[in-house]
């Protein structure tokens, strides 16, 4: 029997679908295992790069990627990287996430021992290109507005975008995104204040 006759048979259809589903799963499994290590390595390098970006140079003399402590924040576990100088904890670096306009925005922040922000960077987001992506430091210096801010400065009710009578700028056409970032940073500072003893201990 030639291919064209077989192709019309009813049994051929599920067989064909099955074969392609198997092939697709096989290809995905292979690609996932082939790229897994490289992706993990690339993400670790990204993490190292961004950690050193939020932390002012010379503040840490330890390998803070290895000096971690895991703390519970509600349901989620947050890994805190501790920057020490001469064995004393000088700053804590950790990731917080907040729901933005499209999916979670992951924010990395460094807080010094007095609860003051040393630096904030957005690690991962899916905001609208050209509008919400100004939270990336590469596209706009907006995220640097957080440097040196703490829970008392500005006052708690001023921790918002200007539209909500806060002190942080929103972007033209995108309010939800910066609002989420402000909320994330504020949440991070509150988290640090609540767990200061455990972090520095």
């Amino acid at each position: 029997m030639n291919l064209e006759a077989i192709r019309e048979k009813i049994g051929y259809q599920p067989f064909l679908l099955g074969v392609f589903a198997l092939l697709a799963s096989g290809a995905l499994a292979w690609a996932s295992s082939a790229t897994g290590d490289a992706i993990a390595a690339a993400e670790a390098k990204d993490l190292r790069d961004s950690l050193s970006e939020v932390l002012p140079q010379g503040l840490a003399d330890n390998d803070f990627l290895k000096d971690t402590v895991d703390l519970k924040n509600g349901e989620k576990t947050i890994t805190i990287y501790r920057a020490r100088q001469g064995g004393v904890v000088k700053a804590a670096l950790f990731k917080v996430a907040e729901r933005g306009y499209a999916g979670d925005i992951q924010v990395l922040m460094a807080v010094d021992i007095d609860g003051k922000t040393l630096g904030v960077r957005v690690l991962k987001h899916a905001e609208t290109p050209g509008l919400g992506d100004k939270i990336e430091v590469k596209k706009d210096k907006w995220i640097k507005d957080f440097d040196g801010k703490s829970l008392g400065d500005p006052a708690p009710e001023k921790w918002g975008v200007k539209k909500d009578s806060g002190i942080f700028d929103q972007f033209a056409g995108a309010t939800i995104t910066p609002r989420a970032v402000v909320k994330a940073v504020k949440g991070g500072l509150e988290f640090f204040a609540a767990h200061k003893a455990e972090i520095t201990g």
Partner: protein
Amino acid sequence: MSDSYGKLMKDGLWENNVVFAQLLAMCPTMAVTTSGTNGLGMGLATTAVLVVSNILVSMIRHTVSSQVRIPVFVVLIATLVTVVDMAMNAWLHELYKVLGLFIALIVVNCAILGRAEAFAVKNGVVASAVDGLAMGLGFTGALTFIGLIREFLGSGTLFAQASNLLGPSFAFLEMKLPGYGGALLMILPPGGFAILGFLLAGKRVMEQRIQERSAEKAELAAA
């Protein structure tokens, strides 16, 4: 054969352009054309996927029966895009950080399934690859063009952040209109639809002019 490849290119770039003639892939078109750079990035990523998916579909066209071809193509394209996504994340991580945003959008791009269905399933591997390339470049051109217009009217810049996508040596492309804040509407979806509408109308007028002129010429030749 070279003649027909030329026709394929012309089809993809102009006559049968994905955006301006087929009006396909409207979702990514509206979503990413907020700047010329974004349009270019999305266009290039789509072109790569389109060429490979056309080649694969053309290769399996004799095995796949017409009854189940759609699910087979969908699975094939989704797998392909996912593999490309993972491979880029692993080995072209810098590029992935820029283009990664667009890759997931390619799965929902009906232009890819459209070309598989309309062309690759009926034609040979080489012709399908050429068709994928032509359609992809046409798409890239359209997205970049719409993106540039929206970016210029909306934020007063051209190719902003092109150096992020193409490398620092392309920084010369970036331009900024001093003292112009931009009309936000153009960046938002309504601006996208408005610009696309004007461009479609413009293309029609242009084609009509060309037709009239060639008709006049034919008349003159006859007289």
